[in-house]
């Protein structure tokens, strides 16, 4: 079940990414609407992070392409904010909350331009919005999981982007933080922003998202929540098909697969 939209915020065509010879995402074809909160869901290892990284160009697709706001990602980076998985960085790095949030302003400044008063105001405002302003001078090594995530969100807010791409912003945060974060996402949505969020919990997904992308190396479905949130599609995503898919992937890893190149 794949539903396409006109004037998409994001479009993937034939998108395929291999690690060495093992496919992590395979032939994804979908379009995503603007101004919605979109959940990307699938079991562990189904290629969710890989998909986000290939959208951002961090991973180069082996086949196919992605367009963001109908342009190549390199042309619209200033409109896109990427929030990596929290565990992907070393939180012992010698820096504090404010400095991390300030990094969000670099996307518009580049390597050399100085920060202005406006920049600092934006950073301050972002910290207030995630309720981290009081902790702005805290070393990041002293933060709890939820506080780390909110620091990352403050950095994203500082970017003033139109599309937010977030890898598991709810992972390892408590109920209160989760509530605060979803509140923030809804606030952004009401301002016309598009949010692309990797999420694990099926139960809460129902209340959080307008649109779902179901992933299991291949695309199981993409469309409005009401149409996608069915037992059939969910069990296809999380259920038995996984075993045969991973068997196929292992075989491809051993024998190789001729793929089309651009």
């Amino acid at each position, binding site marked *: 079940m794949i539903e396409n939209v006109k004037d998409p915020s994001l479009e993937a065509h034939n998108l395929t990414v291999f690690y060495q010879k093992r496919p992590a995402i395979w032939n994804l074809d979908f379009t995503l609407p603007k101004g919605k909160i979109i959940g990307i869901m699938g079991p562990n290892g189904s290629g969710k992070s890989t998909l986000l990284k290939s959208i951002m160009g961090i991973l180069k697709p082996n086949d196919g392409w992605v367009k963001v706001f109908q342009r190549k990602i390199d042309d619209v*980076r200033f409109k896109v904010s990427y929030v990596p998985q929290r565990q992907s960085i070393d939180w012992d*790095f*010698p820096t504090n909350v404010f400095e991390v949030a300030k*990094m969000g302003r*670099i996307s518009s400044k580049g390597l050399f331009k100085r920060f202005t008063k406006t920049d600092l105001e934006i950073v301050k405002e972002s910290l207030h919005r995630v309720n981290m302003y009081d902790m702005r001078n805290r070393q990041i*090594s002293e933060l709890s999981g939820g506080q780390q995530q909110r620091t990352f969100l403050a950095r994203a807010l500082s970017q003033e982007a139109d599309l937010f791409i977030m890898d598991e912003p709810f992972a390892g945060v408590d109920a209160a933080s989760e509530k605060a974060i979803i509140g923030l996402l809804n606030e952004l949505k009401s301002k016309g922003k598009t949010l692309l969020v990797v999420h694990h919990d099926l139960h809460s997904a129902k209340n959080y998202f307008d649109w779902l992308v179901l992933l299991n190396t291949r695309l199981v479905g993409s469309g409005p929540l009401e149409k996608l949130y069915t037992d059939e599609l969910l069990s296809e995503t999380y259920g038995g098909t996984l075993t045969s898919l991973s068997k196929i992937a292992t075989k491809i890893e051993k024998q190789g697969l001729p793929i089309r190149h651009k």
Partner: protein
Amino acid sequence: MEKITEFFSFSDTTILTVTLGSILLGILGSVVGVFTYLRKRVLIGDVIAHSVLPGLVLGFLVLNEKSFIVLLIGALISGGLSSFLVDYITHHSKLKTDAALALVLGVFFGFGTFLLTKLQGHSGASQAGIDAYLFGQAAAIDLFDVQVIGVCCVLLLLTLLIFFRGFNILSFDEQFAYSIGMPTQWLKFVLTSMTIITVALGVQLVGVVLMSALLITPTSAARFWTSKVKIMLLLAALFGAFGGLSGALISYLNYRMPTGPWIVIVLSFLAFLSFVFAPKKGVLFRLFSNVFFKIKIQKENILKDLFLLENETIEIEELQEHQPSQSVFNRWVQRILVYEKKIKKMENRRFTLTALGRAQGSKIFERHKLWEKYIGKYMHLMRDHVHTDAEGIEHIIDEEIERDLKSSI
């Protein structure tokens, strides 16, 4: 003493060049080392340093000349090659980074040692000396070399200053850096090149074996004192400069003592001092804060128990249960309390509370009760569990938490 003043007068150009070279390399190594450390690339620095050896020896064998420039070029080539190979192997084979590092180091250093043995039979090798390659030969640094080092030092420090923002964000979160359009590949290339150049310049001074110490020791020392990258850079540079200066001085005072190893020894000593004495992260601080906390708990327990005893709100047996034994530690804490005029010694070796002690004891008891109430209200714990819990927590509650607790009950 006389020799020290003689040293600092720099009347001898050799002293001047060696000292200047040591200081400059100390600074350069530490500053470049900071980013190697932050990017968790410490081992690659070590690999590059060891891998420089075949380049050094080949340069000498081919051109039959042991000039600084020849050594430098040889070092740059083999250092660059080794770092390229590590990257290539990790990306194009099943080997993980650690295996690739070990492999490249082994092959390059092994080949270098082989060439060195060859060199020994070579004419004119006596003055080259194996030690010079392995452990450096600072005395061989002449005015021209110092000029080369100086120019490189200025250029590299400028690069670092100009691209600081890029290097910093790259080290912190490479994926994010890429996502906002930073030229991460290019920045990484520049950083690696800086490491290679620094190593190539430094082997003359400390040799291939100890070179990585010059990169990493000042940085590790600096990390103990600060949590800001900029200050870390400054501190590391300071440590590096101090190490360079002291190394040169010590080796001057003790004729025949090589400069390079002394620099490394001084730096290691600085790192050790930082490890022990630095506030917050240092061992002593942590040890003492631990001991102080234990003393505080013991003091409060004694005061509270005496308070309870006075008010007879507690059975004697129950008191004994959480009255620690009459250990040395306990008697010691009692003495502190006497000294603080919180308790008084009575006949038959018993203690009684002073007014001050009584106030404090009652406060602790109050906090204990407060916590029991709070946890009973919110946590649905069994009554008997609540008590053991409160035994610990009462020592942690401060004025602020007390206020919070009161307001939430």
